[in-house]
């Protein structure tokens, strides 16, 4: 890792504090749902639809196992999962916890079986008889969009979830263009493949009189709302605990049918039930992200300045929407983020989100921005080639400048701060462009071709009420709360409703609390993941938690300081005005008193307190949201060098540089870890990952033998450099950055490959870039230009 020196001393904001949560994970002592076992626990296995589209005629329970098998009709009173949205044209897709009437994708849960072990439950499940009349299948979003006869949802009239149209200044801006560049690019469908799949264990707690749901989720409070709502019971009867979670990425930010089914079983029988998703279920029923297709037309001038952009975006939405975010999030983000970090004056876009017979789309790390960055950055390179300029120079021509900040984009996003051209310039310098260009000219001894690529993006993080409310969702994030409790021995307990599952928030939120209170990080205990122990939050998604929960933690800590000082002043025999709170103690003219002594006074020796002590004690719960909640925009430029093997179709990443700016860094090491993880996922999108379907809607990658993920040996050396432009709108100037790493890799790698092959007229534009797609593109170019010799 480069830039190791970036970081402040101490343990507060900006310090490279080692992650507190790593100790248990490094020792295999984490507690995941699959580690849990309760007396009398039963395991659940789901029978899933073997066909992509069909009318469910009958589900026959095996003789002798009638009481161990459940179908939709058994779950009277449980509501189907559906989330409305006020986005124009949005249609409601209703999903039952177990299929009713129709099945709409391979892997859709149809029935469930229970038994002492999972193997026994699977034995029972496979003897359930299904009768399904097959219906015509849609696997191609372009075709499904135009088909008004064969419908997934009969009452829709077509197969379109929603269409977003947006136009701003297009006609006026395009008129001045002298160069018109068209490109079509697309991304394959994928699965998110968290290390831990989904997992839910529900039990009835007689003592508390509550249904306790242990579930691997990013959003425990939201799941509580959902389970109570769809089961039709009081929220007070439900407690949701999200223990250690092995990766979320968006896959675990919604309520799933299986969660509802397991909760229903536990409520019904008052005994523990558990379901653990296996890898096959994940790859089949969870192939639900990234599949976008773009048709872009860029209107530019001779210098490559992009004046106006025309776009048609098609998103293969799969069969269902989701609760609570709805499928509208994806087209909404695509439409609003396509212009990216560029200063464009005219924009026209039409975004279709289409229903097909695949698992319903979910927001995956980077939500739509991986796709829009892929599209925009390829267009930038194409414009550069059209005007015969270096792609770097053309980008510099188009980027929003630091002087223009804050900047209102053509898609009405409000970019709060940053110096985009500086990040790109630094990326070019750090990758060492001149030396690589020289090597590229010289040629490689092994015949491979060198290519250099750039990609830039900006990333809306921590967007709040105003943004989500404009989509009219059932659930809109508002003030995030934190409870900070001083313990009797002068430590802190920090309780937050967001969830940390790899983001390191048990450390970074402690750093925030340390920054305000001076209490050592080791003595600050962050509690999260339990609706019974933490204040409400909509949870962890959209790169929001460090801004929102971090702000709440800081505010709660700040509110305690006057109380500490007031007690301290009394103990020191001076006035509160004469004291300061510093280094974890109250200092007065004649001496100091430690937080430990102050806490002891409040809890254990109240005779030492002043008579007018603040009755709220040494604990506070406060809410926070940024005053301007349109988002704090992180951004980055990535630069990459690849070597392309023309004979094997292999692509090796030789060097990878990232210059990122996420505002004030809370912990550079955590930022680097998050970035690296995201980049590896982005490399997966670029080169490896794909969930293909045959024409009958059968998934062709149902095990990891067919679904290729990058492994340790596929990860190149990655050098990360930081810029720090604090957001003017957030506490401490922090910006969210959890998703960014996954946004640029497909764009930057494809641009590098296209750079390597530009003189052959080869352009690749469809993820993942496997040997077949690459060799076919080379062959196409060879046929198209027979005069040109392909090396």
């Amino acid at each position, binding site marked *: 890792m480069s830039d190791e020196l970036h970081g402040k001393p101490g343990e507060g904001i900006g310090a490279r504090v080692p992650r507190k949560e790593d100790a248990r994970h490094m020792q295999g002592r984490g507690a995941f749902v699959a580690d849990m076992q309760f007396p009398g626990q039963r395991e659940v296995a789901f029978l899933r639809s073997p066909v992509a589209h069909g009318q469910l005629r009958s589900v026959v329970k095996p003789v002798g196992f009638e009481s161990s098998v459940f179908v939709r009709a058994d779950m009277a009173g449980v509501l189907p999962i559906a989330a409305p949205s006020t986005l124009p044209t949005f249609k409601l897709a209703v999903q039952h916890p177990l299929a009713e009437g129709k099945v709409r994708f391979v892997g859709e849960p149809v029935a469930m079986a229970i038994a002492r*072990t*999972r*193997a026994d439950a*699977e*034995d029972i499940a*496979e003897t359930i008889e299904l009768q399904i009349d097959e219906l015509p299948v849609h696997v191609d979003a372009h075709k499904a969009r135009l088909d008004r006869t064969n419908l997934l949802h009969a009452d829709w009239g077509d197969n379109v979830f929603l269409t977003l149209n947006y136009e701003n200044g297009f006609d006026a801006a395009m008129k001045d263009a002298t160069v018109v560049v068209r490109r079509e690019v697309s991304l394959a469908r994928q699965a998110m493949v968290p290390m831990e799949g989904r997992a839910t264990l529900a039990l009835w707690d007689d003592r508390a009189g509550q249904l306790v749901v242990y579930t691997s989720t990013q959003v425990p409070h939201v799941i509580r709302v959902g389970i109570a709502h769809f089961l039709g019971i009081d929220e007070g009867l439900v407690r949701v605990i999200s223990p250690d979670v092995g990766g979320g990425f968006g896959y675990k930010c919604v309520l799933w049918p299986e969660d509802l089914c397991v909760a229903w079983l536990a409520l019904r029988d008052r005994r523990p039930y558990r379901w653990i998703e*296996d890898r*096959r279920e994940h790859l089949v029923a969870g192939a639900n992200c990234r599949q976008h297709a773009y048709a872009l037309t860029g209107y530019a001038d001779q210098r490559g300045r992009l004046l106006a952009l025309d776009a048609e975006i098609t998103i293969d939405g799969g069969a269902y929407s989701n609760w609570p975010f709805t499928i509208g999030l994806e087209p909404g983000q695509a439409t609003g983020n396509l212009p990216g970090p560029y200063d464009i004056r005219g924009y026209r876009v039409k975004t279709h989100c289409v229903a097909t017979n695949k698992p319903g789309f979910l927001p995956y790390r980077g939500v739509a921005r991986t796709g829009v960055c892929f599209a925009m950055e390829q267009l930038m390179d194409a414009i550069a080639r059209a005007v015969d300029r270096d792609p770097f120079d053309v980008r510099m021509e188009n980027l929003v400048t630091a002087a223009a900040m804050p900047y209102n984009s053509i898609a009405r996003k409000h970019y709060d701060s940053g110096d985009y051209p500086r990040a790109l310039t630094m990326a070019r310098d750090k990758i060492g462009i001149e030396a690589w260009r020289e090597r590229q000219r010289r040629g490689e001894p092994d015949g491979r071709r060198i290519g250099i690529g750039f990609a830039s993006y900006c990333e809306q993080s921590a967007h709040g009420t105003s943004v989500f409310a404009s989509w009219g969702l059932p659930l809109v994030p508002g003030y995030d709360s934190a409870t900070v409790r001083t313990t009797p021995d002068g430590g802190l307990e920090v309780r937050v409703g967001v969830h940390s599952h790899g983001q390191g928030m048990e450390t970074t939120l402690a750093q925030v609390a340390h920054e305000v209170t001076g209490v050592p990080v080791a003595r600050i205990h962050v509690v999260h993941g339990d609706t019974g122990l933490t204040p409400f939050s909509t949870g962890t998604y959209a790169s929001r938690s460090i801004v929102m929960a971090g702000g709440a933690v800081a505010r709660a800590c700040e509110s305690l300081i006057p109380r500490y000082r007031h007690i301290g002043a009394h103990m020191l025999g001076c006035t509160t005005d004469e004291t300061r709170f510093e280094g974890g103690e109250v200092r007065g003219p004649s001496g100091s008193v430690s937080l430990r002594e102050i806490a002891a006074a409040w809890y254990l020796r109240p005779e030492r307190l002043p008579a007018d002590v603040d009755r709220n004690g040494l604990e506070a719960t406060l809410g926070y949201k940024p005053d301007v909640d349109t988002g704090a925009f992180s951004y980055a430029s990535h630069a990459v060098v690849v070597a392309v093997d023309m*004979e*094997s*179709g*292999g692509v090796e990443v030789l060097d990878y540089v990232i210059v990122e700016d996420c505002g004030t860094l809370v912990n550079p090491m955590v930022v680097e870890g998050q970035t690296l993880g995201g980049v590896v996922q982005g490399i997966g999108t670029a080169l*490896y990952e794909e969930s293909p379907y045959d024409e009958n809607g059968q998934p062709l990658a149902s*095990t990891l*033998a067919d679904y*290729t993920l*990058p*492994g340790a*040996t*596929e990860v190149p050396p990655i050098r990360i450099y930081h810029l720090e432009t604090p957001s003017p709108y957030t506490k401490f100037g922090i910006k969210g950055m959890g998703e960014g790493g996954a946004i640029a890799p497909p764009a930057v790698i494809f641009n590098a490959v296209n750079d390597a092959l530009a003189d052959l007229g080869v352009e690749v534009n469809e993820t993942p870039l*496997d*040997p*077949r797609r690459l*060799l*076919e593109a080379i*062959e196409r170019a060879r046929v198209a230009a027979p005069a040109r010799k392909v090396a």
Partner: protein
Amino acid sequence: MKAARFAYERPADLSSAVRALGEYAAASGDAKPMAGGQSLGPMLNLRLARPGRVIDLSRIAALRCIESAATSASVVPDGRWRIGAAVTHAEIEDSPAPLDGRGFLRHVASGIAYRAVRNRGTIGGSLAHADPAADWPLALNALGAQVCILGPGGRRDVSAADFMRAGFSTVLADDEIIEAIDGPVLSAEARWGYWKICRKTGEFPEASAAAVFDPVRGHARIVAGALGTAPVALEGLAEAVARLGSVALTTHAVDQALVDAVSGLDAVERKLHVTALLRATRQVFES
């Protein structure tokens, strides 16, 4: 997914293993030997294999030894080596002396999957499983090794080239097991090449090729793997390369030899296989 119910047995010696397998094969026909479980395990879990009984061979000492004339002259004749069927890829990778004289087996073993799989997966299991893209069916074919088979009726040897009939299909009968692999020690003049085109480390290849030339024994073989069926030897090409040297090794000649021997390849597959064959065979001239 979890495996369907099966009975499990771990015989201590070879004869009880063969006896058990024979009995169940005769009675119900649904017993399966298991070695490293690296292929059978996933098949059981996905319920693609549903044997009534699994007979674990992994602890049978007789299947676990590596022998050469140097280690146990009494069993293995001069100029031969012998590897028990239940020897793991990792054990071959780590074997101290190049068993075959030229380090070919060691190299092949070290490139199978990744270490965790190599720690358990066995040479016999790999041959019996007969994945078209697997390493041992290709490498042992190129080397001209023999597969020693043991059944209720006794022992028989089949050449590695004939052992695999097609993808996931071999000449083994239900009641037979592989006992060992037996092959020639290469001469000092022998050269080999081995190339796999894999999307990532540890992944089965898209195309693979092995070339073994031993002028002293008059052995010349170039074999293409990962063709969806058993590996295919390009005999004319090998013979030309042995006779004429590297001048015979043109892209055109390799391509021609491939399409003559294998039908139904599309343009990309053809390109990948030609690349693997060229790169494997070129190594013969580079070492």
